[in-house]
């Protein structure tokens, strides 16, 4: 009985706090994405204009997002049966978008960021994930 109550409390706290934090994070992500829309990022290198380049440098941004207790439990249950682990999708989505945003914020004045790459890894067992975004920021001669 005590076990069940403990589990229910942990699940409820995990769910409510976790989804509040997630909603807040998404609001911030969307807002900053709009603000930085002008900062161009592409995955290729053929967007370079035929203009003299003043400087270019490596820019990177990384974000570590943790799962909550609710997601962890649901993820584990889903692991048993297989299939889409939808609860972790938002986690990775947030990590990737946050990483790209941080990379952009590192070079807000860049004319374009070329060759964007994203890498992910797990941290602290499998309860957190890291997304690392990096690319080459290019500044043209004015």
């Amino acid at each position, binding site marked *: *009985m005590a*076990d*069940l109550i403990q*589990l229910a409390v*942990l*699940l409820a706290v995990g*769910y409510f706090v976790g*989804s509040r934090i997630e909603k807040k994070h998404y609001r911030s992500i969307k807002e900053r*994405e*709009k603000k930085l*829309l*002008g900062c*161009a990022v*592409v995955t290729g290198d*053929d*967007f370079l204009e035929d203009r003299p380049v003043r400087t270019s440098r490596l820019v990177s941004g990384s974000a570590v997002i943790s799962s909550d207790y*609710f*997601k*962890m*439990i*649901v993820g*584990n*249950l*889903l*692991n*048993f*049966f297989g299939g*889409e682990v*939808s*609860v972790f*999708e*938002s986690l*990775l*989505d947030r990590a990737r978008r946050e990483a790209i945003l941080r990379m952009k914020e590192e070079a807000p004045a860049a004319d*374009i960021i070329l060759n964007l790459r994203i890498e992910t890894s797990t941290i602290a067992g499998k309860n957190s994930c890291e997304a690392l975004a990096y690319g080459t920021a290019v500044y043209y001669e004015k």
Partner: protein
Amino acid sequence: MKYTPKDLEENVNVSPQSPLRTFSIAFAKTLAVLVIIYFIIGALVDLIAPRVSVGTEKKIGALIDAAFKDRKQTEQELRLQSILDPLAKGDPALPGFDYKVYVQENQQVNAVALPAGNIVVFSGLIKEVKSENEMAMVLAHELGHFRHHDHLRGMGRQLLLLLLVSFFSGGDSSSQSIVLPSITTMQMRFSQKQEQAADQYGVDLLNKTYGHAAGATDFFVKMSKKDDWPKFMYFFSTHPYPASRIQAITERIQEKGYLAGKVEPLWIAKKE
């Protein structure tokens, strides 16, 4: 190539399904699998338990009740033993243990059957019980646990389930945290069934030994008066709701046409 910024409104990378829905479906599936496994294991254990020899059960019991091994019985315990002996002789189908009763200083109003023939009565129970018949019912109930091999059945389930849980979860504690409470709850349902079965056995044996079933419900009536748990809490308890126990025993008495005789007062030293 010219770069034109575009604002993305929708997100294809995150499923629109609500996490609560995902959880409910996954939980229901897990529970279904657990219930199926639990019943298969339960059936297997129930099949094997009665076939375990008395000697093996004694060996298993020796691991648990070493505290009472070869202890000399006190006067109070010998008095209880004199109630137990005729009961134990009354059923030839009981496993051939050396049935002994011991008293433990404990305020809880309870008695337990340890594996392999030892019954421990708490001093709190002796204070409550007023008649010999009432005490005989408690002891006969405990004999019912031996008759039904409840220790082996309980332990067998627990053991196999724990094995299974750690096997499936690979020692991962977070999935165990959801699987174990579910199993414990099922275990409680099983335990309640065992208690009901021991009650039925107890009233039968009481009637067989005393020629009537007087005093069969006395103890549970006392329990239900003391009881301050709401009924739904009994879903998670090892023992059934006292009122349902009284009802089940009364029904058994009526069904079998047991006589209502007179209860004998219990002459016993209340304190050593």
